[in-house]
């Protein structure tokens, strides 16, 4: 029957999947039995009692109290079992173990942002170690989204204005699909994400060095990704509009005057310094509000930003 299980349900990849699937099959067994009973009786009666003449007289059977009780009590007994089993499984899935790795997952049309305790942020994908509990703290920046991982059998709405949570312990390394599963507009069916479950060593390596993708993506493309994901876009425009910070359009190679009167050319060093130690030099006419990205940005990502800015004429 394994083929049937694999056809109907996704791979089991968390500690929660097994119990849920067992209940699923228990209900299926009950359903098959009851449906078979009903179907067989319907078809059998349609054939056996088919009207043969217009004068047939049928027995006047009005009711049977015993039967009513039996076919009320037996289903009642079965559904109560299902209720407790389901309730128990649900409660288990609500309370994350104390030593869980906590990851913030925020939905916004139409991407998932993840943030680790050390402040590292990723987009549409994140890594977790196998066999360790992970607690996802969910929220949304706009409308209700929902974070669904079929293989882990978990799902929870991400609601704007509050936090919800779900947790899992992955049992097998691999890549697992995440779907947004609360309708949220045009990009709803593209609001996908991936969970990379690594063995412990690979996970630690990733924490230090980041995604393979980041190592191989062409630098300007990487820079654009960083611009979008790490919040640069909040203050720096690409089209010349003045924001909280200077626009990046045409800034490469330009001479800026700082608040202390110094004139600095926008080159590799200046950009690196602006990201890692922004308070050192503030362009005249702007406030000293840019936060440092030390620890929040990898070296190759800085290079990517530099290359990206070069191309913004």
């Amino acid at each position, binding site marked *: 029957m394994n083929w049937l299980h694999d056809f109907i349900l996704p791979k089991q990849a968390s500690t929660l999947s097994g119990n849920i699937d067992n209940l699923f099959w228990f209900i299926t067994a009950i359903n098959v039995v009851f449906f078979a009973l009903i179907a067989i009786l319907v078809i059998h009666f*349609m054939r056996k009692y088919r009207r043969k003449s217009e004068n047939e007289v049928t027995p006047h*059977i009005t009711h049977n109290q015993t039967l009513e009780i039996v076919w009320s009590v037996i289903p009642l007994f079965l*559904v109560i079992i299902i209720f407790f089993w389901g*309730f128990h499984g649900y409660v288990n*899935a609500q309370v994350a173990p104390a030593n869980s790795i906590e990851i913030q997952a925020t939905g916004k049309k139409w991407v998932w942002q993840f943030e680790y305790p050390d402040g590292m942020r990723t987009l549409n994908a994140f890594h977790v170690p196998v066999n360790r509990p992970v607690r996802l703290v969910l929220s949304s920046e706009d409308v209700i989204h929902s974070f669904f991982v079929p293989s882990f059998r978990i799902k929870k709405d991400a609601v704007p204005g509050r936090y919800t949570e779900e947790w899992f312990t992955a049992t097998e390394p691999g890549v697992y*699909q995440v779907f947004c599963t*609360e309708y949220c507009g*045009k990009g709803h069916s593209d609001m996908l994400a991936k969970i990379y479950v690594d063995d412990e060593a690979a996970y630690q390596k990733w924490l230090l060095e980041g995604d393979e993708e980041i190592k191989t993506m062409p630098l300007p493309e990487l820079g654009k990704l960083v611009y979008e994901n790490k919040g640069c876009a909040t203050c720096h425009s690409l089209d010349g509009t003045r924001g909280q910070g200077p626009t990046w359009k045409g800034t490469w190679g330009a001479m800026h005057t700082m608040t202390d009167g110094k004139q600095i050319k926008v080159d590799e060093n200046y950009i690196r310094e602006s990201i890692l130690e922004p308070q050192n030099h503030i362009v005249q006419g702007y406030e000293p509000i840019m936060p440092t990205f030390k620890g929040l940005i990898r070296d190759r990502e800085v290079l990517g930003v530099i290359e990206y800015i070069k191309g913004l004429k």
Partner: protein
Amino acid sequence: MAHYAPGENYLNSPPGLWSWLSTVDHKRIGIMYLWSILFFFLIGGLMALLVRIELLTPKQTIMTAEQYNQVFTLHGAIMVFLFIIPSVPAALGNFVLPLMLGAKDVAFPKVNLMSLYIYWTGALMAVGAIVLGGIDTGWTFYTPYSTSTGGAVSLMTLAAFVLGFSSILTGVNFIATIHKLRAPGMGWFQLPLFIWSMYATALIQIMATPVLAITLLLLFMERVFHIGIFDPKLGGDPVLFQHFFWFYSHPAVYIMIVPGFAIISEIIPTFSKKTIFGYKAIAFSSVAIAIVGFLVWGHHMFVSGQSTLAGAIFSFLTFLVAIPSAVKVFNWLATMYRGSIDLRAPMLYACSFLLLFSIGGLTGLYLGAMSVDVHLHDTYFIVAHFHYVMMGGTVIAFLGGLHYWWPKMFGRMYNERLAAIACALVFVGFNVTFFTQFVLGSRGMPRRYYNYLDQFQPLHAFSTYGSWILGAGLFLTAGYLLATFRKPMDAPANPWGGKTFEWETQSPPITHNFDFDPVLLHGPYDYRPAKPRENEPVAH
């Protein structure tokens, strides 16, 4: 005694369009409702076919994502508000209920006409909303998406608000009619079960719909005046909308299915020529469903962030409300046992109902179980479940009732052979379309998805082919039913051997329903051979 010319009936007398538009005859009002809801069934059905065609392939097949989002929203909104909720009560119910009670009309005929005009007003507003920008929120209008998205959401919200009053007035009318206009001798336990079910439905209509009305009003006010109830940016709670919405919309699904139960309770005894088994069980189960149905709304919200305790209460009550429905199915089966079964179209539909509604109800068990629901919620499993109960249940029962009362309403018999073929097409097509969707859902395919992963494509395609078979069956049905209008009105008063009052008057009935005073002489499902009684008038 007859003051009517031969051949005179409620359809042809009085003549003229204005006499129809100003009528207070419940039969004429029922017929006007019937054509209206069938029209919207067609529109909603075409939307469904478009959705399925788009889903033949991932990404774009025939429309863009924005268009798809509008089409599935309109499919749902039209089917729920403009078709299924009024279908049995306002169309078939209006026609049959007074006849079954031995009454000349409903309690408030003018209010009945008003409720039709309110329906038409709401329908016009809905059509306006479709044309003036459309809606893409899903029929459930969840906030804050619905308070922030563009389109004609405000107008559609008002349209649904208006339609709600049509439903409320029908409910008020039916309750008063059932209480006050029964024929002499017809006590509560001599009522046909159709009446018991319509009574339960009417109770739900009047208790639940006002809450929808206020929910829609609040949604409208939030959208237009930003009052701060559902939008978190304004200090509101988006999950509160879900509570308000489902407080109506869960009972609403019982407004949809309980009338279906009503029809099945009539067809099965008649076409088994055998008294109904478990009359009181079936009668009380309808009322039990109506009451408990108000207490389970949170089973739509197990993953919304509501408290575990609330979820547990809702889950437990959900399992309780399943039992009366199961009891009905068993009682209907027991009615067929040792019956004399006539397999003409109404009975074919009733038997289809038993199978399809059972699947729908049994799959509800997965969804009432909290832990399993977490996996299945908002996937195609849900879509399959509600189509099995709403379409495999209500629509199939509606079609059965339509065939059952067609000779009474229009005085003509339809072609039984074509009806059997169409029923088979509908049955097969329906299962191919929707059983497939259970598997799509359990495998993780989310609902309301325009694009999808390649691995889901074979199942999606299979489901779409099913929709073509289903559509063919429905179009065939429309064809042979409409073709009856080319035949003379020669249907007998009682083609099926029914024992309820509507079969004691001509087909179609005269305007005043009966040219005698109906008095109850036997129970509605008494198929025992009539014993001659001394000094008692025969029924007619």
